[in-house]
């Protein structure tokens, strides 16, 4: 493990993806503004070209440029991340610390895989957005009018800043750094959600998301301050040591509770999820997709950092984490609430939002299982954690494909004129068979039907839970299993409930006649279709051959310890 505290090539290599994003950010800011602008040397009439402003060059004036730049940036960053992931020795365990030895960033498989999730989600969203932001505008109340040349750049800048913020969260070794990254990402997403500010729904969704989100993160910040009060540092290792030494005090519990509120909002766990459906329905679909995948993964990351690093009991200790009961209840309520609410939802985006709540419940259930990690685990207490964390990572990774994919399909419909009613999807099976098939794949993957990736991920999660619950594998009756087993049962039952609304999408697509005026194939949008195709391929491929990814996730899970 090497500590670094100055900017050098090694650090750039270590933080390669982040630098890439940063460079890309600068490029998007600068490149579209390149022109034949000159500046006059003061006191002279000599005008030196400084290439900013003036008449912009034709190449850089292309409205597509910011998008392409963002896609390029994200693609490069993703490739870098994958490179690191495949070559685990390259960047593993590298720590960036401040001069007084405070660890700021730590690069390991765990953070890398989250970066991969973030970049993948944002890359797909960016690709999908390429066609969604046409230049020029035709009708005054058309959503397309929102996106003029200038705002192209804004949109992608925000995407890249959120990418940056998220990777900071992934890398952070200090709670406050994590929080700063979280805020950076959050602010970008607030604005992205409100990017439709010229529509009533867009501005409203943005405002609500902002209000609730910022209250949540403010509470989180307050929690941090209490933590700081408690431990005198916000370093993870310091906090963990302190926790191990002191155990749960009311101050630390309260502090951690507040911190968790901030993350719980991000993963939209009940009862912090209320703004999510509004935000998803107000935002445009790719952004909503990002919220449901990358943003959620970010919240999950925070939760895992706090719960699994700080508050996990010693592996030698006999017992479970203090929060296990709480998290168990939260998980149960969240998954059930989400599914029940989604059952009758007539707005597909809200439905997906509620389904995302339910997925948060599944993930919380998995975390709960980790809380029981010392349950009868004689051989190796850490194993269960690895398994469950790996399952969670896998789940969040593949969720990018089918959750975002589903939103992107709605995005295609939005380009035509809205996807806020289930009936917008009507007749898609006839109009766009491939899109409909893709959507159906996403839906059954969300529900967890083999051989989709969603099945494998859910299977892994349930396997993780069951493995923890069964302990050493000798039970005299099922009642002797840890109670998290019942969470697994609830989870499968919830999967069955969720089948109802996922299938309904299929039914609407294939059964219902299209709405008035929505006949024939949809307007072509090559890039969004490419993104959807990628999602579909990912959904099927990771379901059939997810082995490598599972390996990666396992490595990542081990590096968390």
């Amino acid at each position, binding site marked *: 493990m090497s500590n670094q505290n100055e900017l050098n090539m090694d650090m750039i290599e270590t933080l390669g993806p982040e630098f890439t994003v940063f460079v890309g950010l600068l490029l998007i800011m600068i490149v579209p503004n390149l022109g034949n602008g000159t500046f006059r040397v003061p006191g002279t009439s000599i005008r030196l070209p400084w290439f900013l402003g003036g008449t912009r060059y034709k190449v850089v004036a292309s409205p597509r440029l910011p998008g392409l730049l963002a896609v390029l940036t994200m693609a490069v960053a993703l490739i870098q991340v994958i490179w690191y992931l495949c070559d685990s020795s390259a960047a593993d365990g590298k720590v960036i610390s401040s001069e007084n030895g*405070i660890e700021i960033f730590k690069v390991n498989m765990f953070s890398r895989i989250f970066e991969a999730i973030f970049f993948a989600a944002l890359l797909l969203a960016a690709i999908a957005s390429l066609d969604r932001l046409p230049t020029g505008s035709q009708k005054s109340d058309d959503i397309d009018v929102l996106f003029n040349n200038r705002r192209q750049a804004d949109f992608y800048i925000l995407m890249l800043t959120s990418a940056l913020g998220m990777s900071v969260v992934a890398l952070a070794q200090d709670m406050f750094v994590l929080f*700063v990254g979280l805020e950076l990402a959050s602010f970008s997403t*607030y604005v992205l959600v*409100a990017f439709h500010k010229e529509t009533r729904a867009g*501005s409203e969704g943005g405002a609500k998301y902002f*209000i609730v989100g*910022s209250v949540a993160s403010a509470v989180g910040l*307050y929690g941090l301050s209490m933590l*700081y*009060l408690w431990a005198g540092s916000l370093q993870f290792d310091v906090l963990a040591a302190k926790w191990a030494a002191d155990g749960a005090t009311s101050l630390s519990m309260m502090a951690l509770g507040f911190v968790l509120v901030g993350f719980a909002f991000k993963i939209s766990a009940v009862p912090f999820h209320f703004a999510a459906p509004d935000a998803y329905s107000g935002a445009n679909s790719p952004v909503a997709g990002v919220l449901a995948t990358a943003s959620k993964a970010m919240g999950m990351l925070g939760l895992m950092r706090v719960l699994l690093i700080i508050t996990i009991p010693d592996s030698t200790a006999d017992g479970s984490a203090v929060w296990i009961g709480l998290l168990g209840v939260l998980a149960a309520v969240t998954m059930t609430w989400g599914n029940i609410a989604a059952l009758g939802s007539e707005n597909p985006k809200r439905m997906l939002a509620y389904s995302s709540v339910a997925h948060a419940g599944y993930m919380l259930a998995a975390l709960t299982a980790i809380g029981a990690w010392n349950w009868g685990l004689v051989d190796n207490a850490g194993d269960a954690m690895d398994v469950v964390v790996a399952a969670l990572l896998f789940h969040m990774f593949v969720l990018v494909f089918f959750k975002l994919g589903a939103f992107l399909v709605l995005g295609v419909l939005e380009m035509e004129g809205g996807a806020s009613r289930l009936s917008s999807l009507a007749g898609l099976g006839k109009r766009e068979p491939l899109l409909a098939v893709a959507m159906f794949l996403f839906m059954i993957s969300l529900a967890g039907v083999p051989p989709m990736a969603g099945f494998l991920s859910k299977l892994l999660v349930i396997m993780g839970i069951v493995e923890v619950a069964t302990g050493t594998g000798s039970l005299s009756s099922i009642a002797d299993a840890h109670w998290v087993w019942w969470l697994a049962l609830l989870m499968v039952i919830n999967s069955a409930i969720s089948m109802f609304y996922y299938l309904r999408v299929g039914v609407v697509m294939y059964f219902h006649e299209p709405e008035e005026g929505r006949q024939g194939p949809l307007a072509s949008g090559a890039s969004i279709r490419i993104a959807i195709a990628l999602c579909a391929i990912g959904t099927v491929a990771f379901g059939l051959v997810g082995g490598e990814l599972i390996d990666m996730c396992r490595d990542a899970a081990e590096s968390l310890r």
Partner: protein
Amino acid sequence: MIDPAWVSVLSAILFIIGVWGAFTRKNAIIVLMCLELILNAANLQFVAAAIQHGDATGWVYAIFAIAIAASEVAIGLAIFLAMYGQHETISLDDVNLLKH
């Protein structure tokens, strides 16, 4: 010198006021102000804790938090402005097109 504990109490009071205000007030701007209250409560706590622990990092945290609060307000106001442009109100209760 004041016992840092009292500062914590003060910050707790501020926090409670802030949270209370956040869900009792309809006016978005006032909610924003309540948000600031919560953030400032955190700042106070940071500072107090920094003194208590004799650790300078707390100060740094506070300064960062102020910057965050500032940008939060900027974003918030921009979003509310957009909202006002569409809904012609900044009452959070009246902006409920999206629900259920």
